[in-house]
């Protein structure tokens, strides 16, 4: 016998599958018809999916906005750089690394995992303090955490290279690698959202007081989601570095925070599909605006936007979304197969 509940769970399970299939189709389309620059764009978009879905695991389920997730991307990127750069390069650029790290030449996959793991560990330690605060105060504290990480990374020159860039990272990240990690992030996010902890966390999002009264330990579930989400942001940061081959602390600061927030808010913070749709929408809009900034010819008339207007217009669009469609494009709904497709005929027991 299949209960209504099981059918709904089955329908919900189609969400990550559908999302991954859409992204797969996107990659195939780009690789078949696009050139090098569209492949680049697809890679960037898929890395953003990893980052934003990672971000959603915490922000979407808990309802607490974090401004600190770019810092996890920063840590992940540098951990991956420390463990994969050639030793000769490291003695030159980063003389302050401890000997075992200076000699390390890890495979890139292990390095990405390490980047995520260190970010998650950092999230556990700092989250233990930050997440004891109430929602809004916790958001502010994550902002302080971001500034703290940026201050350390910009000044700890022997180990991080300071504000100058670290160059020479292996550029192994293309559309397929990025798709693999994006798919992993989506699967884990969907699994977490439907786990006991994910459901408890969503309950605290809807009503913190009622959830506490029902015996839910808000702090514990927030901390778990925070660490899990930091893992994927760490991995996403490492992928960013290995996609362009260069990293520096300011690439992982306010502008990345803004882009991640814009994507999540545009798509809708309430659902996993919203996070993915937001990445796609903002990436496409950004590309279109960038093309316009470089200038196009419309009906024989050259048209171009003044340089720098891309960010202004994306910020404006974000405010308009908040005013006119506060729950985002998807308004908290998930992309899923309709219940009657996955349920089949309902069989009654006799």
């Amino acid at each position, binding site marked *: 016998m299949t209960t209504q509940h099981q059918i709904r769970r089955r329908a919900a399970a189609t969400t990550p599958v559908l999302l991954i299939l859409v992204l797969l189709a996107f990659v195939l389309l780009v690789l078949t018809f696009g050139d090098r620059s569209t492949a680049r764009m697809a890679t960037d978009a898929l890395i953003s999916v990893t980052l934003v879905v990672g971000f959603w695991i915490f922000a979407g389920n808990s309802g607490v906005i974090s401004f600190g997730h770019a810092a996890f991307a920063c840590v992940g990127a540098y951990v991956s750089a420390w463990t994969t750069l050639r030793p000769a390069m490291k003695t030159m650029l980063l003389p302050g690394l401890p000997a075992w790290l200076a000699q390390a030449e890890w495979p890139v996959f292990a390095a990405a995992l390490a980047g995520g793991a260190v970010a998650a560990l950092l999230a556990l330690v700092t989250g233990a303090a930050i997440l004891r605060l109430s*929602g809004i105060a916790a958001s502010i504290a994550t902002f302080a955490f971001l500034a703290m990480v940026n201050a350390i990374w910009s000044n700890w020159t022997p180990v991080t290279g300071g504000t100058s860039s670290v160059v020479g990272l292996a550029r192994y990240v293309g559309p397929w690698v990025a798709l693999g990690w994006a798919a992993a992030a989506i699967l884990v996010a969907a699994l977490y959202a439907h786990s006991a902890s994910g459901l408890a966390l969503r309950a605290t999002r809807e009503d913190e007081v009622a959830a506490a009264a029902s015996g839910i330990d808000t702090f514990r579930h927030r901390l778990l989601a925070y660490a899990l989400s930091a893992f994927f942001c760490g991995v996403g940061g490492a992928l960013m570095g290995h996609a362009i081959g260069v990293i520096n602390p300011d690439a992982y600061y306010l502008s990345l925070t803004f882009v991640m927030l814009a994507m999540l808010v545009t798509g809708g913070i309430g659902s996993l599909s919203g996070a993915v749709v937001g990445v796609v929408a903002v990436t496409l809009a950004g590309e279109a605006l960038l093309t316009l900034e470089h200038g196009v010819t419309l009906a024989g008339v050259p048209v171009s936007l003044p340089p720098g207007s891309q960010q*202004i217009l994306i910020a404006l669009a974000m405010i308009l979304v*908040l005013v006119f469609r506060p729950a985002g494009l998807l308004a908290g709904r998930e992309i899923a197969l309709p219940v009657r497709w996955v349920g089949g005929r309902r069989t009654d027991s006799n």
Partner: protein
Amino acid sequence: MSLQLVFDALSLGGIYAIAALGIALIFGVMKLVNFAHGQFIAFAVFALIVPSANAVATLGIGALPAPLLITLVLAIGAGLAVLAERLVFRPLRDASPVSLMVASFALGVMLQNLLLVTYGGRPKAVSLWAGLGAPVPVLTAQVPLLQLIVIGAVAAILAGLALMLKRTRIGLEMRAAAEDFGMARLLGVKANVVISGAFALSGALAAVVALVLVAQTGVADVRMGGQIMLVAFIATVVGGMGSLPGAVAAGLLIGAASALLQAFLPPEARPFRDAFLYGLVILVLLARPQGLFAPAGAKPRV
């Protein structure tokens, strides 16, 4: 040496307190954590100079005599804040604090990029009131004149604001709105007046911070409001969200802690001063998660 330290702590803490008040005033009336406050500060800084991408700025408003200049910059700060309220935050009045916060962040990015497009990205040299750097002997210490003026001005502003909040009608209405906005409206407090008033005050306070920053550093930089806004945020959290005296006290405390760290940290650790400062703040919050001066009723009762 130690007297000098007292003056450093007071002037730095005073500026932090003014910035924190700017954040706390708006949070009090509409539960908005204003992430655009740093850009209000930067905007007021750039209002002083003529738009151009040159490395050395030509003073526009900044060349006017001081009383006129100060009035004008305060008015610009207040006007910008009121405009932001009218265009961005009024349509969002019923939105959740989280949406408000995200919207203010987007507004900040927008303002920053507008400044970048208009003035270029490089920091500019601005010589505003260069004579104020001259040291003045006070008892055993040599104190820059600017520090004395800052301390005096902060004291005057705090006293004036306290009087306004305690004695005038709009002050009373603001405190009532901060306490319970719905109830205040039922009793005849006009929401638009109170909220616009809070934004105007907050914008004017941002302009005060801007003037002090320019006079101190002699630089106009698009990013210059960011660090001070962060400290102001931290001060409002440490002071207890929604408590104005708490924000002021915490701003002063953080200024003092910052001056002490600067003086007593070993030189090789000084670049990390802010990291130590934020670390200290996290320790304080671990002990008192609701802040040092949390207003009663800030925590929902189960």
